[in-house]
């Protein structure tokens, strides 16, 4: 393999494999540089047309050389121009689609928040000058740059600053920043999104050995300086996709930064002076410059200057010429270039065609920030216009293209930004660079031709000028329509290089000015970002916090299976060896109905409501009256939203005249507290009430079953537990198992039952004491659900769905008729909420007592199902096997259900609808005889 490495370039050798062949490169190479150094020109084959494609650019603007990383871990679609070479890299060229790994990504990803006074994006000459000037004021400065090394274009151009090489100068600037304690430099960090209020996001590709592979920076900046440079612009001409066609600046970068020659004999095709610098460097490096085709007819001054001295002495400059064709070698790469102009048409042998159609300032972040763009008629480019945020643009990113100009602009902008952030910048010298004067650039987007089928405007999507013209011919006028019709600009590079050119072609085809037509929208991210980087650490168990009670360890050690309820892990049931779920739950149910069971109820929300107006406050929020509750007593309560639909339920206990403890459902605890706070703060600020979440302060053990009194008596000898001393719906302070506790006599199963609340730290001791009595069976949420359903108690969120009123649940008794108002009351009087055929909560008994109806099954009136659509009468909300009833049963919301009690309805389950009987929703102990044990 031919080496295209310049003589004298040396370094650590790295081995890599590309498209199945082994190569060597040098540390510091990109994959693209290493491929070019090995003489690999056609690096990919395009997806649809199968045309060979080469390397077009030298950094993130690359539109062509996409690769799939195979080893060390598969990663789809990266640009060969940005992949830093490493030993053992295995990659293949990608003409079409990338491929995802079929195994988990072992890497870690991270995120970090940062605040600064001045964020400088881009560490080129302007950015470095801006950052050092701003940092000199003592301001907190972050300088982020997407390259591994600072300097921007300086290593590409080899220009000198302050009399030293550009790279040396850049290193000096970094050293200066390193001495500023408030300055932070982030290399390999691409700022890819510019959001509201100067919130910018960046991704840092971290070096090997770092704690994470990639890290997202979330930066809030007082001021932002965008020094993002400019991209050289391609030109649309026939065959402009051939390997060997390359941006002039890119070829210069390969020669100067990497010591790699992209060809042996080059033709230069340019609209301005910049390409001459590239040609001069390449000529000095040993590339033969066959000719320069300069579209400007008035470029004679240059012509004469070139003839006199320097590496380009004697080079033929063809003014007023354009490239009209590219001849190809057997591998499809450039073999000759046809130029045409006043001198006629000539075919020139060459393996490299350097293109320079001018420069496009990199305005992506500025545009994302909301800033307006304007078309500059002298620069022939879109440049930043009016800003929408606290941002300034420096250097080439706003069309300042000379090194001296960029340095000057950088210092001025950095100074301005720091001062706008409230800092004083000491006088700061402007680094010195050679001042050059340039001729005005020409403007050429498109080389006219009869046939535009190989004038490409998007290399990945294989869109040509002909395609664009088909779109405009179909009647499309908006550049957005043309983009969507042709797919130009939608590929991996998102039109970084060719987007403006595409706009120009549309403008040309429709006879409007490009400045009036505009561009497609610049959207985040500026460069692709991996999903994994954005997900960061919020994966697996950290995706959402896991909440566990103080008894969790015991449950896990005793074989409990868990149910996710909101963020909580709740014991679902406790299977014994050999038991399936059904057996275990039936056993737990029987234990509670016949003996005693204990459940961890700690996850129920608990809100301490106190203050002189607490009673009044609760009266307004609950449907029933709370102010009449006696201290020491407990009342069940329901809350509705203002629309009258049930929102939550729970018990309220009065601890003192001015203090209540309200419990909520597990999943709604935060929502109920927020609800209370919202009403208090925004509607009733005159009420003197304070609400505090105390959910996690308490461990709660529900002790239920006919033997629960005996168990409690044993554990709390000081507590009078007889029904008269400790009646239903009251609470007592007591010592239980030697632990200070608040014991409530409430029941969610219909059995004699208690809830014992202790400090969360003592929860495990209490639980072990309760279970340690030997007569108490631990039970989980499933058993709790069965027991409460037998009693017809609804679970909010299971038997309700946000469309159910208390009356629908058969809970008229919980809705106060005395109160003038409570939240939701007015809605109950609306036409729809007072309809008689609303869905009521009822019980269902399948006629086959062994048939368990699926929860969610629907009810119809007829035993034969007509053709759809069939209007359902309702649906099954809860369905269980009941140990107590010795059969299956269900709860359902059924239209006019209370009037249907005793009726037979049908549940379609696939075959013939199965018959069920509608019953009252309380199926077990309707008289409430078991409550007192």
């Amino acid at each position, binding site marked *: 393999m031919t080496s295209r490495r310049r003589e004298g370039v040396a370094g650590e050798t790295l081995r890599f494999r590309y498209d199945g062949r082994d190569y060597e490169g040098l540390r510091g190479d990109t994959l693209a540089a290493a491929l070019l150094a090995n003489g690999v020109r056609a690096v990919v084959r395009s997806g649809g047309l199968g045309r060979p494609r080469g390397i077009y650019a030298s950094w993130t603007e690359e539109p062509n050389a996409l690769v799939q990383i195979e080893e060390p871990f598969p990663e789809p679609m990266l640009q060969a121009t940005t992949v830093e070479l490493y030993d053992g890299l295995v990659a293949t060229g990608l003409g079409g689609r990338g491929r995802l790994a079929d195994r988990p990504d072992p890497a870690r990803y991270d995120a970090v928040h940062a605040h600064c006074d001045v964020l400088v994006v881009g560490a080129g000459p302007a950015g470095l000058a801006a950052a050092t000037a701003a940092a000199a004021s003592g301001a907190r400065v972050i300088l982020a740059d997407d390259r591994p090394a600072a300097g921007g274009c300086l290593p590409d151009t080899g220009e000198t600053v302050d009399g030293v090489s550009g790279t040396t100068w850049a290193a000096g600037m970094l050293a200066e920043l390193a001495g500023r304690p408030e300055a932070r430099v982030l290399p390999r960090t691409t700022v890819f999104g510019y959001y509201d209020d100067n*919130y910018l996001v960046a991704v840092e590709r971290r070096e090997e050995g770092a704690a994470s592979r990639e890290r997202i920076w*979330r930066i809030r900046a007082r001021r932002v300086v965008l020094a993002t440079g400019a991209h050289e612009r391609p030109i649309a001409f026939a065959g402009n996709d051939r390997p060997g066609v390359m941006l002039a600046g890119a070829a210069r970068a390969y020669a100067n930064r990497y010591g790699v020659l992209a060809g042996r004999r080059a033709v230069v095709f340019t609209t301005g002076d910049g390409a001459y610098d590239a040609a001069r460097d390449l000529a000095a490096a040993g590339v033969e410059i066959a000719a320069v085709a300069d579209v400007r007819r008035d470029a004679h001054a240059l012509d004469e200057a070139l003839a006199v001295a320097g590496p380009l002495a004697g080079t033929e400059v063809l003014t007023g010429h354009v490239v009209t064709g590219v001849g190809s070698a057997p591998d499809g790469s450039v073999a000759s270039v046809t130029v045409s102009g006043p001198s006629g048409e000539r075919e020139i042998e060459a393996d490299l065609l350097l293109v320079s159609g001018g420069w496009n300032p990199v305005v992506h972040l500025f545009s994302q920030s909301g800033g307006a763009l304007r078309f500059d008629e002298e620069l022939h480019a879109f440049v930043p216009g009016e800003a929408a945020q606290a941002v300034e643009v420096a250097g080439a990113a706003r069309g300042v293209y000379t090194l001296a100009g960029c340095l000057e602009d950088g210092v001025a902008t950095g100074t301005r930004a720091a001062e706008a952030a409230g800092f004083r910048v000491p006088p700061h010298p402007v680094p010195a660079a050679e001042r050059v004067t340039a001729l005005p650039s020409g403007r050429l987007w498109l080389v006219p031709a009869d046939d535009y089928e190989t004038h490409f405007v998007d290399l990945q999507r294989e869109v040509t000028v002909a395609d664009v013209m088909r779109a405009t011919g179909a009647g499309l006028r908006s550049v957005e329509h043309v983009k969507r019709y042709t797919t130009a600009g939608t590929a991996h590079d998102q039109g970084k290089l060719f987007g403006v050119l595409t706009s120009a072609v549309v403008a040309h085809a429709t006879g409007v000015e490009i400045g009036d037509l505009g561009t497609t929208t610049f959207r985040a991210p500026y460069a692709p970002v991996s999903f994994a980087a954005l997900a960061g650490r919020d994966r697996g168990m950290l995706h959402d916090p896991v909440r566990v009670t103080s008894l969790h360890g015991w449950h896990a050690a005793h074989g409990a299976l868990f149910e996710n309820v909101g963020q909580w892990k709740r014991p679902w049931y406790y299977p014994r060896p050999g038991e399936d779920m059904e057996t275990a739950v039936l056993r737990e149910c029987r234990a509670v109905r016949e003996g005693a069971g204990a459940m961890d109820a700690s996850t129920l929300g608990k809100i301490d409501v106190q203050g002189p107006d607490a009673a009044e406050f609760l009266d307004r929020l609950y449907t029933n009256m709370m102010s009449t509750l006696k201290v020491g007593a407990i009342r069940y309560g329901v809350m509705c939203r203002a629309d009258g639909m049930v929102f939550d339920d729970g018990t309220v206990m009065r601890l003192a005249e001015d203090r209540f403890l309200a419990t909520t459902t597990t999943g709604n605890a935060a929502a109920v507290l927020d609800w209370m*706070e919202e009403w208090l703060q925004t509607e009733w600020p005159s009420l003197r009430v304070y609400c505090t979440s105390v959910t996690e302060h308490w461990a709660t053990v529900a002790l239920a079953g006919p033997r629960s009194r005996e168990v409690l008596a044993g554990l709390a000898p000081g507590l009078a537990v007889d029904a008269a001393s400790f009646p239903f719906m009251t609470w007592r302070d007591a010592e239980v198992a030697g632990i200070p506790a608040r014991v409530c006599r409430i029941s969610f199963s219909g059995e004699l039952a208690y809830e014992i609340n202790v400090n969360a730290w003592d929860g495990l001791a209490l639980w072990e004491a309760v279970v340690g009595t030997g007569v108490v069976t631990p039970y989980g949420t499933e058993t709790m659900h069965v027991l409460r359903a037998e009693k017809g108690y609804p679970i909010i969120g299971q038997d309700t769905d946000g469309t159910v009123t208390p009356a629908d649940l058969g809970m008229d008794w919980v809705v106060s008729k005395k109160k003038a108002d409570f939240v939701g009351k007015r809605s109950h009087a*609306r036409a729809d909420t007072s309809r008689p055929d609303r869905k009521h909560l009822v019980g269902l008994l399948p006629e086959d007592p062994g048939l368990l109806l699926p929860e969610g099954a629907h009810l119809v009136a007829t035993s034969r199902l007509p053709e759809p659509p069939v209007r359902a009468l309702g649906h099954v909300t809860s369905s269980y096997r009941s140990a107590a009833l010795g059969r299956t049963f269900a709860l359902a919301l059924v239209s006019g259900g209370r009037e249907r009690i005793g009726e037979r309805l049908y549940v379609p389950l696939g075959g013939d609808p199965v018959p069920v009987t509608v019953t009252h929703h309380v199926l077990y102990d309707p008289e409430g005889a078991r409550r007192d044990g």
Partner: protein
Amino acid sequence: MLLIPCPWCGPRDEAEFHYGGQAHVAYPADPAALSDEEWARYLFFRDNPKGRFAERWSHTAGCRRWFTLTRDTATGVFESEAGA
């Protein structure tokens, strides 16, 4: 990510806040006295302007206070407005 000026805590990231929609929609003094139409207006109808909008925020991950701000829904820019 908006930077929301909490009157109690200062400017904080949007992610710390809960949005409360249009401000200054008072709970009716006597809901029972309202017609269904009037009650529906209170329940469901809120301003939705493209432009200045007085809106409620709650600093749920901070001081947990509700407060009112005016923001331009066409530009995203907050004006300062005192009071809860």
